[in-house]
């Protein structure tokens, strides 16, 4: 793609319907992942998030072979694996981490096995592993809007319960909140979010969409809601940068450019942000009791 001046460069990619859809999808997914990611980061669930992405692979493969909705197939396998992890840890002395490791690698291997039986294997594998947002159709966009909107509504509705559980699980239980239910709800929200994001970002990189914006926010913000706002804004910015980079540099997968944008913002903030408990801490800590 070629352009003449700055505004021209901004406008040119948007003349194509696929790029328009891609930009919209990337922004929506970026915001959704950042909101969910704030809970993921604070509850140390990033490994589970990565595992869910990999475990959904066979579901995605089967769905794409049969021409079904890819997100639905992936979600079924993702949630099933999450339940399977719980089943293994209840049945045996295998630790949670180990059970996740066993299942997510196993499911991923199953996905590769299934896909290798199909023709056009390499091209499809690359599309699923690294994402192909320019292939997003109008119907995929509607799926993202519908499912993403539903997740945001659920989080908004249960915001105070999820916040209390994240901050102090025992106190949440002592106040009568069903912490077990809330935990599984959050895992399901994660699984669905990951699967919605897979098509555009790719299985391998999707965990960064969850974790990096919230991790960046945690370097700066002092309130949980501002962590969500920061993450959403970063999600929007990184999506936009990523789409333009992949539009102008031939062959760069959008998943890669969006995640690189997130990582660059993280490193920038890490270097520029006031160091934790250093100078600022000297003035603020230990004001007399």
């Amino acid at each position, binding site marked *: 793609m070629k352009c003449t001046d700055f505004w021209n460069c901004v406008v040119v990619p948007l003349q194509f319907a696929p790029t328009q859809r891609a930009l919209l999808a990337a922004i929506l997914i970026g915001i959704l992942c950042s909101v969910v990611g704030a809970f993921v980061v604070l509850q140390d669930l990033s490994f589970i998030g990565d595992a869910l992405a990999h475990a959904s692979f066979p579901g995605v493969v089967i769905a794409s072979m049969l021409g079904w909705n890819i997100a639905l197939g992936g979600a079924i396998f993702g949630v099933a694996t999450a339940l399977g992890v719980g089943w293994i840890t209840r049945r045996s002395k295998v630790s949670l981490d180990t059970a996740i490791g066993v299942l997510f690698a196993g499911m991923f291997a199953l996905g590769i096995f299934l896909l290798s039986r199909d023709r056009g294997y390499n091209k499809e594998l690359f599309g699923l592993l690294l994402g192909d947002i320019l292939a997003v159709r109008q119907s995929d966009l509607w799926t993202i809007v519908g499912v993403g909107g539903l997740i945001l509504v659920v989080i908004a509705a249960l915001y105070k319960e999820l916040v209390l559980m*994240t*901050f102090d699980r*025992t*106190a*949440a239980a*002592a*106040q009568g909140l069903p912490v077990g239910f809330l935990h599984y709800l959050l895992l399901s929200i994660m699984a669905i979010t990951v699967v919605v994001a897979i098509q555009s970002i790719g299985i391998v990189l999707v965990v960064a969409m969850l974790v990096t914006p919230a991790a960046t926010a945690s370097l700066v913000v002092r309130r*949980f809601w501002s*962590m969500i706002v920061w993450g959403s804004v970063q999600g929007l910015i990184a999506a936009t940068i990523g789409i333009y980079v992949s539009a102008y540099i031939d062959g760069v997968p959008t998943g890669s450019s969006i995640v690189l944008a997130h990582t660059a913002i993280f490193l920038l903030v890490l270097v520029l942000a006031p160091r934790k408990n250093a100078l600022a801490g000297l003035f603020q800590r230990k004001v007399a009791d």
Partner: protein
Amino acid sequence: MAAVASQAHIRLQSATSLAPALEVRQLNIRYDQRTVLSDVSFQAQSSQLIGIIGPNGAGKTSLIKAILGLIPSTGQILVAGQALAKRSRKVAYVPQISAVNWRFPASVRDVVLMGRYGQLGWLRRPKKADYALADAALEQVNMQDFAERSIADLSGGQQQRVFLARALAQEPDVLLLDEPISGVDVPTQEVILHLLRDLSSAGRTLLVTTHHLQHLEHHFDALLCLNQCLIAYGPPTAVMTREVVEATFGRSLVLVPSAERIILDCNHGNCTEKQTLINRDGSANN
């Protein structure tokens, strides 16, 4: 007709006001086929500040968690004569400050407001009245000037007071505190203990686990000595006998060096005869 009804009402009222603020009957806790606590029964009155003492693994935290319904137990737990319902505001919990997620970014007011969440119910946002209760609770612990500060920036003692305020925002009758004076310096311990005294003087019942054995008699109205069962319960002067202390802490703790100590080890609930030393309502027999 109306007179009968009002008479019944008066009877009911006097019945509930006579009931102890907290009563635990024959509480048993087993975990992984191991007895954590067996046959614990006691009553606590309003305005009482009660210390729960015992060695590590004695079941102090388990007792608190069982009263809160966080771990399975058998027996009865009555608050003001009534079985405790889920989502009850009546019993509030103050965790050990090390037990919360310190990476969670929140202001002091945010944290105190969380004390209202359980009662608000699903889909309800905190209202003006909830904010007012949170601010009043902060004033009670003398932390009102810190409302907008980040919880992570406070000292341990200040954090402890914020969590106390969170429990107070729940407007409880009974407060259960897990090691509130651990990990803070001695002046701060004094501040917190005086605060607890103020709260109990206002009519609340406070149960406080502690492994600090200094000045117990000055700060607590009653002591509950635990070691897998209730060793003794009563006023500190009556309870802190050599016999009880040794039964509670075993041979490891020597308060009074003496050649003629009587070792009374308490193992797996095999110590019921010791309870006869002191009555369940806290008065001493001897």
